[in-house]
């Protein structure tokens, strides 16, 4: 993969493990590497249990016990976030990296007004206070296209509709002028017309604020509209990574192909191309490729060890033995 020359965020060999009830540790994220360039939008796609949200939480070091980051390097703006102490990481979190979550009600404090919460963020990060803070809060609400920002600033989260709440959370995320925003399923809870508005807004904000965006989603439609590059996750590993147009035009991994084929509405009236089976639970992975049990193109080698990354194109990587004829041949000989 050709990474951007000077990426804003670079994750290398990230491994985040969780202690299971029986005392064993299982990796929810295992050997994940990717970069987000300046001004770039990277989509991290996967189903539930794929490790996409744990990856995001690892980047901002919010993985709580029984989970812990076991290995890896997370370089953000030249510094390894895993080497920072609590105080230093707090300076990065919220200040340099903003977040937008799926459920705005969980991120907004119900007992304070929207305006107060933005002013508090500005104050904590030493950006503005008093009248200046008030003015800036309203500007931010305006920037996320909330109508009547003066009035809305005085309202509480429950007085806002789902779409407006999502915008308020974006205003909060942007308050400290971060250079990277991590958005975890930002539109999943929204109706399709509201989702379209929020995606359009995200696109505009990205340009206006010069943001880099790590977009975590299960929705390939959202990825197609928003992302420059895509990483597909399955059971804690990135199985394929490519520029968005390349991934949709030439999906290489059987899982990516299956995922694209199972989206309804591609061939009307036909049966959907379902992927058989289900995602295995954490801690029940075999020694080989995690997708092997569900894969229609499984070979003998697939269940022995996880495949390494093969470049099918200079910027298109895939973890699958289908693209490693030497490994398959070597296995057959031995």
């Amino acid at each position: 993969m050709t990474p951007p020359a000077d990426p804003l965020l670079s994750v290398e060999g990230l491994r985040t493990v969780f202690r299971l009830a029986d005392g064993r540790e299982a990796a929810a994220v295992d050997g994940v590497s990717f970069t987000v360039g300046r001004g770039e939008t990277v989509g991290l796609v996967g189903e539930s249990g794929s490790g996409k949200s744990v990856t995001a939480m690892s980047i901002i070091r919010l993985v709580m016990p029984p989970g812990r980051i076991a290995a890896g390097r997370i370089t953000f703006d030249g510094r390894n976030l895993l080497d920072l102490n609590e105080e230093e990481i707090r300076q990065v979190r919220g200040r340099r990296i903003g977040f937008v979550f799926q459920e705005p009600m969980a991120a907004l404090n119900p007992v304070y007004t929207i305006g107060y919460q933005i002013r508090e963020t500005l104050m904590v990060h030493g950006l503005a206070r008093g009248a200046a803070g008030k003015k800036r809060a309203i500007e931010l609400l305006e920037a996320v296209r909330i109508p009547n920002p003066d009035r809305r600033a005085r309202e509480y989260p429950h007085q806002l509709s789902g779409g407006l709440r999502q915008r308020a959370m974006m205003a909060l995320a942007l308050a400290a002028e971060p250079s990277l925003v991590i958005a975890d399923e930002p539109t999943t809870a929204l109706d399709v017309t509201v989702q379209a508005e929020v995606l359009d807004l995200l696109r505009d904000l990205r340009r206006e604020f010069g943001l880099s965006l790590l977009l975590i989603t299960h929705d390939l439609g959202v990825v197609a509209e928003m992302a420059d590059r895509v990483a597909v996750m399955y059971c804690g590993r990135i199985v394929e990574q490519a520029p968005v147009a390349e991934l949709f035009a030439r999906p290489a991994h059987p899982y990516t192909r299956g995922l694209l084929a199972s989206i309804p509405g591609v061939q009307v009236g036909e049966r959907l191309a379902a992927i058989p089976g289900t995602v295995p639970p954490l801690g029940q992975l075999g020694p080989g490729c995690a997708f092997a049990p569900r894969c229609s193109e499984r070979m003998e080698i697939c269940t022995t060890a996880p495949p390494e990354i093969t470049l099918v194109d200079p910027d298109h990587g895939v973890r699958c033995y289908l693209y490693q004829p030497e490994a398959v041949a070597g296995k057959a000989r031995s």
Partner: protein
Amino acid sequence: MTPLVQVRELVKEFPIRGQWFRKTAPMRAVDDVSFDVLPGETLGLVGESGSGKTTTGRCLLRLIEPTSGSVQFQDMDVLALSSRDLRRARRHFQIVFQDPYSSLNPRMRVGAIVREPLIIHKVGTADTQRARVRDLFELVGLDPNAVEKYPHEFSGGQRQRIGLARALALEPSFVVCDEPVSALDVSVQAQVVNLLMDLQKRLGLTYLFIAHDLRLVRQICDRVAVMFRGRIVELAPAERLFNSPAHPYTKALLSAIPRLEPGQKLERIPFDATRFERAALRQVADGHFAAL
């Protein structure tokens, strides 16, 4: 073709608690809705949250009592049935719920969950009921030996199959599917959708398919009704609706679906909800109705 279900002027109002001594107008969740469901078809009912699609589906089965209107099922006037007759009639129309986690009793074995309707409706003997449960498990693609397990031992997709087996136990002809796959992952969603379509063909089922996923609706529905603020604003054969929507709201809704072709930016069509006016459905083409 004689419709299997005829819904006419259906209204459901929910009271809104007003301030003391002040009357407030009730909220109309379903506002004068009329449509037919033809035997063997899948009629899609789409709309955003609060549009009244789920309330409409539940009113048809009288899981919620409608305020007024009529629902005709074959030659039965559903809204006029006494509670005893309604219980007896319910075997002909069933529902599959959205959330496979909350719709199955966690303390019952899954075999007992599927068998329960047979017991309530006194169908067969204990032995034939047990055999029927095993057949139903096989029908929906579950291991018949799993009847002794509890719901938590199954994944979301498998639980939805259990819910489907229960709904089909009494051999209904009409099934309301209320967002049956929206809680499932995409790859599992496809399995359950395929199963629904296979069962429809094998058993001659008629579906009212309530959903917000427009791509899915396009894929599986014969006809689609679009709801907005408790009203049907457009009803047409699926392909017709997606290719040439007539109502401004439908146009806006369809333009908001994310495209699957990266780089292709299609213009969103805005819809000003404040200028929405109630209008009666009128035919704009053969089988295509819009409230214009």
